[in-house]
Structures are given as structure tokens and as C-alpha cells.
């Protein structure tokens, strides 16, 4: 009688531990995604999760992954314009406002609790976090032909 009860408690602890690890990983990935150029947010978030996966040993809590692509919702960003004097494209630089949203999943393999959930292993838990983007575009005074222009004829 005591063994199943202990196993259930251990399983609960593993599930709670896994969910909390996933929450932390998701938060760190969202922080990384929000800290730089939005176009590279996916790459930074994935790098964080790769580091978490490389540190995770064993199969009880494993396979941290992005559930869907990082969603970078940009509300405002500096707009490049063509300098009439020099003919060059200038990005005035400034803060990008918006949010980066990251959804991560983790696989957890408990001992007996999964029997309650249709005997499916592994159990998958997801976490979703949004962080304000805090990237500041540097002022660019060099030709930037690939960027959209305003004020050009």
C-alpha cells in the first residue's frame, strides 16, 4: 500500500518539477527572443532551449522544444528614410515596441500517473510567455538598399 502511494507522490513531484523547469526555460527563451533583432528571435529562443536540453540528463524530464514559431508582435519600429542631401538610406534608430511570445513544451515520463491520462507516454506540458521587446535599433548611416524606404522619389 505504501509503495503505490509513494510512487504517486514521487510522480507528482516529477510532474511539478518538470512543469516548473519548462516554465523557467520558456521565460528564459522569451527573454532571449525579446532582447535582440526580432527577425532572429526564433534563433535565440532555440539556442536557449538547446542549452537547457544539453544540461538535462535522463528521460524523466526531457525534450524542451518550441511548440510553435516565436511570435514577435511589433507595434512600432523606426522607419528608414532616404536622406535627400546624401542620397543614402538612413535608419534613424530607436526602440522597437511590441512583445515576443514563446510557447515551449516539455516531455515528462512519470512512473504510474500517466495511467490516469489514457496510458500515453510521454506526458506533454506546454507553457506560453510574453515579454516586451527591448531591442533598440542602432542608427545606421550607411546604404541599406534592402530596407523599405519612405521619402524616396
Amino acid at each position, binding site marked *: *500500500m*505504501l509503495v503505490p*502511494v*509513494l510512487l504517486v*507522490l514521487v510522480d*507528482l*513531484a516529477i510532474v*511539478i518539477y518538470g512543469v*516548473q523547469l519548462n*516554465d523557467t526555460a520558456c*521565460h528564459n527563451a522569451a527573454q532571449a527572443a525579446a*532582447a535582440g533583432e526580432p527577425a532572429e528571435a526564433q534563433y535565440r529562443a532555440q539556442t536557449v532551449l538547446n542549452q537547457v536540453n544539453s544540461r538535462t540528463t535522463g528521460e524523466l524530464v526531457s525534450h524542451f522544444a518550441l511548440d510553435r514559431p516565436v511570435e514577435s508582435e511589433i507595434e512600432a519600429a523606426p522607419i528608414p528614410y532616404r536622406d535627400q542631401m546624401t542620397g543614402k538610406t538612413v535608419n*534613424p*534608430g*530607436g*526602440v522597437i*515596441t511590441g512583445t515576443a511570445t514563446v510557447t515551449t513544451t516539455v516531455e515528462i515520463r512519470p512512473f504510474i500517473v500517466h495511467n490516469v491520462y489514457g496510458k500515453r507516454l510521454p506526458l506533454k506540458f506546454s507553457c506560453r*510567455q*510574453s*515579454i*516586451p521587446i*527591448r*531591442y*533598440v535599433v*542602432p*542608427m545606421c*548611416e550607411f546604404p541599406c538598399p534592402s530596407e523599405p524606404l519612405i521619402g524616396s522619389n
Partner: protein
Amino acid sequence: MIVLVSLCMGLIVLVAVIGIIFNNLLFQNSRSQDKVDAMALSFARLINAGNRVGQINELEDRCRELVYVSRQTEIACPAADCGYMTALCDQLLSDARSGQKLVEAERQNQINLICNEVQDAATRYNRDRSADSSFSLNWLQTYEPRITDVALGTIKDVQSSVRSQTVFSELAYHDYLADYFDPETALYKAPLNARLPGSDADLSFELSALPASVKMITPQPRNTNSDVFVPYGKVVESGEQSPNSIQHIPNAVHVSCAMDALVGPHGSNKVSISVVSTGITSGASPEPED
């Protein structure tokens, strides 16, 4: 024997359940901290939206120099055998002095705008947050953090975003003697009323603290240690908007929240856990000639 085993089992289960409750409480607190950090960051970002604080600082500095130069010209006009231009010099000086009033009015306007925008964002969050429990077990329910206080202010030792120019050497020397700027960085200290010498000492030129750009790089908005926050005043107090009493343009925001938790069978004990965070706004955008 059976009773003893049952007691042991009961004790183990009880300890485990208490451990899980406590762990979950800490976990929810940690999640609330993340949420309040993000909130402080988003509020802080509102302060220098579009580099408005940096622009006001630049305006104050340029206006100050204009009044100084106009005064010098007005003094030099009769002495330099240009007496016929005295009326023009007087008019230029008058225009420069009235320009200071426009800049000061805009500075006050920006203070009110910043306070209103932060108040609105805080009120909107409190209104829209879910009143239901974000985490619920029979013996533990936690709720989303609610904003109790929002203070605007600055971060200790942050100077203004404008530098003393050596173009006007006498003015720079006056500022140096008055300890208006840091000789190492040439950045004016803040908050500072950089009064001019002589007849224009009646005008105030309020410079606000804002991280300056360094080598064309604008400092990012970020969360920072609450210990270095210096408050100017509160815009939200006990969850309600409070009258604006702030005299300087802020560059940081300090958010205090309470995370309510109902602990025990049927939520018999209500506790509020305090969660605080401080955010600093983005720095001044670089000027093209920087």
C-alpha cells in the same frame, strides 16, 4: 502494527502535501515576479517613447545656449559700434527668453502625458486582469498580481543625456564652477536646474536624468534593482490613480503588486504576497553629430 504503519503513511503524505503546497506557492510567486517584471518594463518603455525625454533635454540645452548667446550679443551690440542694431538684438533676446517659456510648458506637458499614460496602463491592467484564481487546488488558490502602487522616478547616479559644449567656453567654465556637469563625461547632472549666469538667472532650464547614448548606441530599456530607484512621486496609490505631483521628467518606474493567495481548507486564510519590480526606460537616441 497496522496503526503504526498507517500513522507513518499519513505523516509521509501530509509532509509531501505540505511540501507541494509550499512549492507551488513559491512557483506562483516566481511567475508573478516574471509578470511584474514584464509589466514594469512595458510601463518604463512608455516614458521615453519616441525619444521624447531625450528631445526635451536637447531642447532645454539648445534653448539655454540660445538665451546665453542672445544675451552676449545684446551686451556686445552697443560696445561694438553696432548701436543701430540694438533694437534687433533686444528682439532676439526677447524671442530667446520667450522660447524658454514654450520649452518649459512642453516639459510640463510631457510630465503630465507620461503620468497619464502610466496611470492608464496600470488601470487597464487592474481592470482586465482575471479575477479568477490562476492556480487552484482545494487547499491553495493563487490569483494574478494586482497593482497596488506605481511610482515614477529616476535611477541613482544617472545623469542627463546632454553634454556640455566647449563652443561657448565662458558658459562651459561657468557650468564647470557651478558643478553642473561631470568633467569626465561632460554630461550634465540631473535632475538639475541649469540656471544661466547674470541677468538670465531668473529662467529655469530643467534637465532630466536619462541614460545617454554611447558611440551611437542607445541603452535598452531593462529591469533593474529596486534599491537604486529614487522616487519622484506616485501616480497610482492603493490601486487608485493619484494626483500628479511630479516635478521632473522620470526615467524609471517602480511597480508594487500584491499576489493574493487563499491557503488552507476552503481558502480559510487569505495572504497577500508583495511583488515589486523596477524598470528603466530606453536611453536617448544619438544625435547625428554625436
